[in-house]
C-alpha cells in the first residue's frame, strides 16, 4: 500500500488524507514538499497540552507540525499464556531482565514445552521488532544513539550484547518460524503451545477474538529491561499539499485529534489515544492498563521496525539483515551489516531524537 501511496503522491493524485506512521515514514513526503504544515491547527485545537512531548516530536519536521497522531500502539510488550506460567510456578512480575526471562524459559523447556517463545517472521519485520526491544533494554541512551544513527562501530559492546541476547532468545523459538505470520505466532500463545510472544499491542485483538480474558487467560509485561519505557508505534494523518478538498482535509484532522474522535476510534482499534485526557471507561481491560502505563512512562521511544524511528532506507535493509541473522545466528556478520547500513544511510538521519 505504501508503494501505491508514493505513486499517487508523485502523480499529484494524493487522497485528501492517508494514514502513515509518525516519524520517518512521513519524511519522503515532507522532503519532496508534498505536505503542508499544520502548526496553526495545532495551536487552535490546543493539542500540545493533551499530547506528550515525544509524540509531538514524532509528528514534527523542522520544528513545524505536519501530522495529527490518532493512536498509540505499544511495541515493547511480552504476551504470555497465564495457565502455562501458573502451572510452572513462574511469576511474570519477576521477569524484568533477560537473565530472569531465560531462566523461566529453561524451566519451561524442562517441563516439556520445547519452544517456550513463539515467533512468526513471514514478512521479516517481526525479527526487527524483537531486536529493537532488546536494544531498548540496553538503556534509553543506547536506543537514542541507535535511532540517531550514531551506532557505527561493529564492535560496539552494547550492540554485540543485544545481538547475543537475541541469539539466546532464538534458542527458545519454534523452528518453523519462517513459515508463520505474526498472528499465527500469537495463536501459539493463545493455544498454550508457547508461553511467550513479543509483539505490539495490536496482538490484543487476536486474544479478544479468541474469547480470552485479560488477566485471566493471558497477560502482558514490558519486554525485559524496558520497565517504565513505552515503545511507540503511532498512526497519524496529515494534510497533503494541493489536495482537492483542503477544507474537508482540515475538518478530518480536527476530528482525528479531538477527544471524542480518539475515544470513538481507539476502543475498537485496540490502541490507546494519543491524548492523555482520554475517557478511560470506554476502553477494555488491556487498554486501561496500557493507558495507565502511558501516563506513568519514564521514557518513550519511537519504533524503528514500524517506520518511525529510523529512515526507511535503513529499516528495509535492517529487515533483511535480521532475517539473515535469525537464519545464520552470526553475531559479528549481523553487527557489521547493521552498522554498514547505518553508515550508508547516514545522510538520511535528519531527525535528531531527544529521548531522555
Amino acid at each position, binding site marked *: 500500500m*505504501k508503494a501505491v501511496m508514493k505513486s499517487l503522491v508523485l502523480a499529484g493524485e494524493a487522497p485528501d488524507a492517508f494514514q502513515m506512521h509518525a516519524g520517518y515514514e512521513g519524511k*519522503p513526503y515532507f522532503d519532496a514538499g508534498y505536505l503542508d504544515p499544520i502548526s496553526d491547527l495545532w495551536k487552535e485545537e490546543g493539542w500540545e497540552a493533551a499530547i506528550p512531548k515525544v509524540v509531538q516530536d514524532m509528528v514534527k519536521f523542522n520544528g513545524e507540525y505536519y501530522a495529527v497522531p490518532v493512536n498509540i500502539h505499544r511495541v515493547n510488550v511480552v504476551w504470555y499464556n497465564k495457565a502455562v506460567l501458573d502451572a510452572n510456578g513462574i511469576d511474570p512480575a519477576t521477569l524484568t531482565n533477560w537473565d530472569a526471562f531465560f531462566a523461566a524459559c529453561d524451566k519451561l523447556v524442562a517441563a516439556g514445552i520445547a519452544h517456550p517463545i513463539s515467533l512468526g517472521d513471514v514478512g*521479516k519485520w517481526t525479527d526487527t521488532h524483537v531486536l529493537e526491544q532488546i536494544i531498548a533494554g540496553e538503556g534509553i541512551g543506547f536506543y537514542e544513539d541507535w535511532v540517531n544513527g550514531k551506532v557505527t562501530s561493529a564492535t560496539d559492546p552494547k550492540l554485540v550484547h543485544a545481538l547475543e541476547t537475541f541469539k539466546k532468545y532464538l534458542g527458545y523459538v519454534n523452528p*518453523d518460524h519462517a*513459515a508463520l505470520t505474526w498472528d499465527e505466532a500469537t495463536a501459539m500463545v493463545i493455544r498454550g503451545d508457547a508461553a511467550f510472544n513479543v509483539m505490539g499491542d495490536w496482538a490484543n485483538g487476536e486474544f479478544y477474538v479468541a474469547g480470552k480474558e485479560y488477566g485471566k487467560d493471558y497477560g502482558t509485561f514490558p519486554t525485559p529491561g524496558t520497565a517504565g519505557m513505552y515503545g511507540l508505534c503511532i498512526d497519524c494523518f496529515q494534510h497533503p499539499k494541493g489536495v482537492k478538498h483542503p477544507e474537508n482535509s482540515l475538518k478530518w484532522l480536527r476530528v482525528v485529534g479531538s477527544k471524542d474522535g480518539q475515544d470513538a476510534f481507539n476502543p475498537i482499534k485496540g490502541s490507546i489515544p494519543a491524548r492523555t485526557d482520554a475517557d478511560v471507561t470506554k476502553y477494555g481491560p488491556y487498554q486501561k492498563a496500557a493507558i495507565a502505563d502511558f501516563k506513568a512512562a519514564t521514557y518513550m521511544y519511537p519504533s524503528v521496525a514500524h517506520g518511525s524511528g529510523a529512515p526507511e*532506507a535503513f529499516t528495509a*535493509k535492517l529487515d533483511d539483515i535480521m532475517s*539473515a541473522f535469525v*537464519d545464520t545466528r552470526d553475531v559479528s556478520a549481523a553487527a557489521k551489516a547493521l552498522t554498514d547500513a547505518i553508515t550508508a544511510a547516514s545522510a538520511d538521519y535528519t531527525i535528531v531524537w531527544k529521548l531522555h
Partner: protein
Amino acid sequence: MRFIKDKINTLLVFLPSLILVGYFVYASIGWNAIVSLSDWKGLRPSYNIVGLSQYAYLSHDPVFWTSLENNLLLISLFVPGSLFLGLFLAILLDAKVRAENTFRTIYLLPFALSFVITAALWAWMYNPSIGVINTLFEKIGLGFLKSGWTTDSSIAMYSVILALIWQFSGYTMLVFLAGIRSIPESQIMAARVDGASSLNLYKRIVIPQLKFSALAAFVVLMVFALKAFDFIFILTGGGPGYSTYVLPLMMYRETFSMTHFAYGAAIATLLFVIVMMVVVPYLYMSSRRGKE
C-alpha cells in the same frame, strides 16, 4: 503509384500501435536508462546526471551479486527442468490415451492460475510442521524426505524452483504437444513400417523436429526466469535472509521501499540488457529461418 499508396496505407494502419508501444515501452525504457544515470533518491525527481556511479555502486553491493547468482541458478535449473518435464508430459499425452483432453486440462491448469494464488498455496504446502508435503511424507513412511523447504536457507531457492517448474510445465507441455502434432503423420507411419521401436521413433524422428518448439519455449522461460517477481515475493519475500533474493525483487525493494529510484533504475536497465542478450539472437535466428 499503387505500390506507394499501399505502403502509406500499411504505415497508417500500424501508426497507432507504433505510437503507443513506442511511448509506453521504448521511450519508458530509454527514460529509465536516463534515470539510472542520475542521482534520484526520494520522492522528488532529480535528473542530475552522475554518470555510471549507480552501476559502480551496484558492482560493490553483495545483495546484487547474491540476487544475480539466484537468477542464474533459477535459469540453469528452472528452464531445463520445465522443458524436460513438459516434453515428457507431451510424449505421454501424444500416446492418444482415452481421457486426453482431461489430462491436458489438468496439466495446463497450474499455468492458468494466478501466480499469487499458487505461491500462497505453495507457502502453505511447504510449511514444515503442518504443511501437506511434510505431513504426506510422514504418513507414507518417507519421513526422512521431510525438510524445512522455503524456511531452510540452504534449500529455499531450490524449493522455489520446484514450485515454478510445476507451474510452467503445463505451458511447455502444450508447446511440445503442438510441435509433435505438427509432425507429418506420414513420417511416423513410414518409420513404423520400417520397424522403428518407440524409443528410436522419438529419438530419431520426433525430438529433432521439436527444436523450434523447444527454442520458442526456451526464450519464454528464460525471460520469465529473469523477471520472476510476484511468485517469489509471495512465497518467500526474498527470505530467509537473502537466500531467495532475485534481481526484480531487489529492484522493487530499492525503488519502492527505500525510494532509491536511480539505483532501482540501474538494476532495471541491467536486467533489460540481459534479457536482450537472450531475445535478440532468437529473433535473428527465427527471422533467418523464416527467410529459408
